[in-house]
């Protein structure tokens, strides 16, 4: 292996950071430079993440020693198949959302600051995904969160400020609980490296401390990821933000900072498999309660936000089953949900952009005036409701089959019920927004600009062909190996130490 294979790993963080610094430095002078820089860097990151998948498939897990210090002393970055999977999702959707934002954000002032915060949020997510060090995870978690607080309040209207403040309080408490957990772990094991902690923890017997720390992480990351009892900040924050940010928050941020980090720590580091039933119960509850709350909403984005809670519940249920099939279904649903929920938020942004309202009762019949938005939204709705042949169908099917196989038919029943309810929710959306008759005042609206259409079509295509990811001939071991990385969480420490030479 050559050196270039390794030095690409820190670029996932360093590239967006550098570009955002340059955008702040030069963005005021030349108008187009921030558009170009942001698009190019996200494109480069997207390609880099695909390249990383190739490298990891070829060589197995790679570890990178920052500063050349050997891990327990220095910080190491770990790139295994699970992190690759997340990197591909995060970076590709970010690229598409960036294209959308070029046109959409013309409505707001201070566009270059938007790009800077956007890239910082991306850097935070990438940093969380590739890190192999506990405290480093906390630092990048805070970068991503703080950037998102700023972005939620980007419009500086009353609702946005209030939502952002609420989100910020919840986020700070979550961050502090995670920090408390890290502190207790440091005192207990005297190390911060994840693999090292995993090794030390596995040598000790059952201790109450590990249980307490796991609960802290569960609450902390659950707050960030909007699991059921901690979900109530999400609808405000996600519906108040500008549409590209809602897409990023709902599609990526709650997964990268919440679900991924939780899975990584509980499975790989603490090896707390006794928490799996808790995952399942919480997942099922958020699945059902989220969708019931979504039915009664009349605000387009708020409805989508509640449905996000429900879909995260599916992911947690799948992962919580603990069987290889369930975990694979959960991960596949994570991938799918990122795509169709981003697409739906972009659609709602397009509707908002064209008509100026998000109230379902006021809208209607937009199908005639906005054909692209309407058809992409139809694809996304069918996908999220789990109709074949779209990707959402396959992942829900896998989760339900895994439930039955693992001997939990009750959970399978709830999953089916939530799926039917989701169908109702999105039939409502389609009926009130795009079908029915065109209202008088919307006779003159135009379809949104080309770049916005382009990104929506791109996402809809992925929705359509996403199901192919299940076929090994198409995707290789992309999905399977990521699921294996969770299933074999126990071997994480061993794998990391082996790959350090």
């Amino acid at each position, binding site marked *: 292996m050559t050196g270039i294979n390794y030095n690409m790993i820190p670029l996932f963080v360093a590239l967006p950071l550098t570009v955002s610094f340059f955008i702040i430095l030069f963005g005021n002078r030349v108008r187009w430079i921030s558009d170009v820089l942001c698009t190019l860097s996200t494109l480069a990151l997207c390609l880099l993440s695909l390249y990383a998948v190739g490298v990891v498939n070829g060589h197995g897990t790679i570890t990178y020693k920052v500063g050349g210090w050997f891990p327990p002393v220095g910080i190491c970055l770990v790139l295994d198949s699970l992190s690759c999977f997340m990197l591909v999702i995060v970076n590709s959707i970010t690229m598409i959302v960036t294209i959308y934002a070029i046109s959409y954000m013309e409505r707001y002032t201070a566009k270059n600051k938007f790009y800077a915060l956007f890239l910082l949020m991306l850097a935070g997510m990438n940093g969380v995904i590739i890190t192999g060090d506990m405290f480093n995870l906390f630092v990048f978690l*805070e970068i991503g969160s703080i950037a998102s607080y700023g972005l939620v309040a980007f419009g500086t209207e*009353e*609702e946005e*400020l209030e*939502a952002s403040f609420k989100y910020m309080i919840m986020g700070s*408490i979550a961050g502090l609980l995670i*920090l*408390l957990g890290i502190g207790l772990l440091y005192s207990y094991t005297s190390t911060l490296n994840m693999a090292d902690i995993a090794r030390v923890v596995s040598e000790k017997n059952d201790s109450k401390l590990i249980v307490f720390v796991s609960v802290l992480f569960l609450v902390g990351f659950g707050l960030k990821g909007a699991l059921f009892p901690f979900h109530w900040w999400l609808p405000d924050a996600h519906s108040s933000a500008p549409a590209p940010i809602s897409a990023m928050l709902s599609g990526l941020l709650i997964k990268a900072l919440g679900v991924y980090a939780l899975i990584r720590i509980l499975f790989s580091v603490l090896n707390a498999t006794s928490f799996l039933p808790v995952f399942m119960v919480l997942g099922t509850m958020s699945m059902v309660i989220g969708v019931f709350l979504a039915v009664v909403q009349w605000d387009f984005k708020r409805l989508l936000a509640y449905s996000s809670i429900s879909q995260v519940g599916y992911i947690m249920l799948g992962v919580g089953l603990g069987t290889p099939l369930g975990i694979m279904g959960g991960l596949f649903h994570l991938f799918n949900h990122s795509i169709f929920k981003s697409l739906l938020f972009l659609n709602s942004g397009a509707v908002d952009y064209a008509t100026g309202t998000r109230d379902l009762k006021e809208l209607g019949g937009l199908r005639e005036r906005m054909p692209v938005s309407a058809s992409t939204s139809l694809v996304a709705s069918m996908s999220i409701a789990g109709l074949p042949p779209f990707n959402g169908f396959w992942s829900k099917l896998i989760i339900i089959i895994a439930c039955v196989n693992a001997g939990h038919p009750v959970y399978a029943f709830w999953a089916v019920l939530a799926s039917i309810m989701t169908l109702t929710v999105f039939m409502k959306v389609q009926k009130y927004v795009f079908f029915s008759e065109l209202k008088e005042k919307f006779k003159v609206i135009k379809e949104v600009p080309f770049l916005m259409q382009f990104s929506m079509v791109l996402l809809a295509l992925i929705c359509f062909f996403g199901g192919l990811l299940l076929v090994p001939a198409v995707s290789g071991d992309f999905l399977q190996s990521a699921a294996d990385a969770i299933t074999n969480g126990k071997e994480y420490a061993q794998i990391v130490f082996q790959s350090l030479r």
Partner: protein
Amino acid sequence: MTYFLCMIVFAVGLYAVVAKRNLIKIIIGVMVMEYALNMLFVLFGYRLGGRSPILERYQEIKDIVDPIPQALILTAIVIGLATTALMVALAIRIYEKYGTFDITKIRKLRG
């Protein structure tokens, strides 16, 4: 015992964040929680009769307190400052729009 006292400070902050209805009091609660955690980390690294982790010339290297928590807390303090600054900025804007810091009066959003 010392650890437990530290956690009481943390609990007081948590209580303030959950129970208080004033934006500034909530910010103060978060600050208090941060203090408690910073303190806890440094307590974890303290060594009875230790000396500070700054070496002097010709000094025998022994009995030095754990420098890692100190380095971590340096980072955490700055993160706390950043969070506080952003929260205060939001609070100012909210005051500008609503003319009050009382969150029971500014509930525009549902649940």
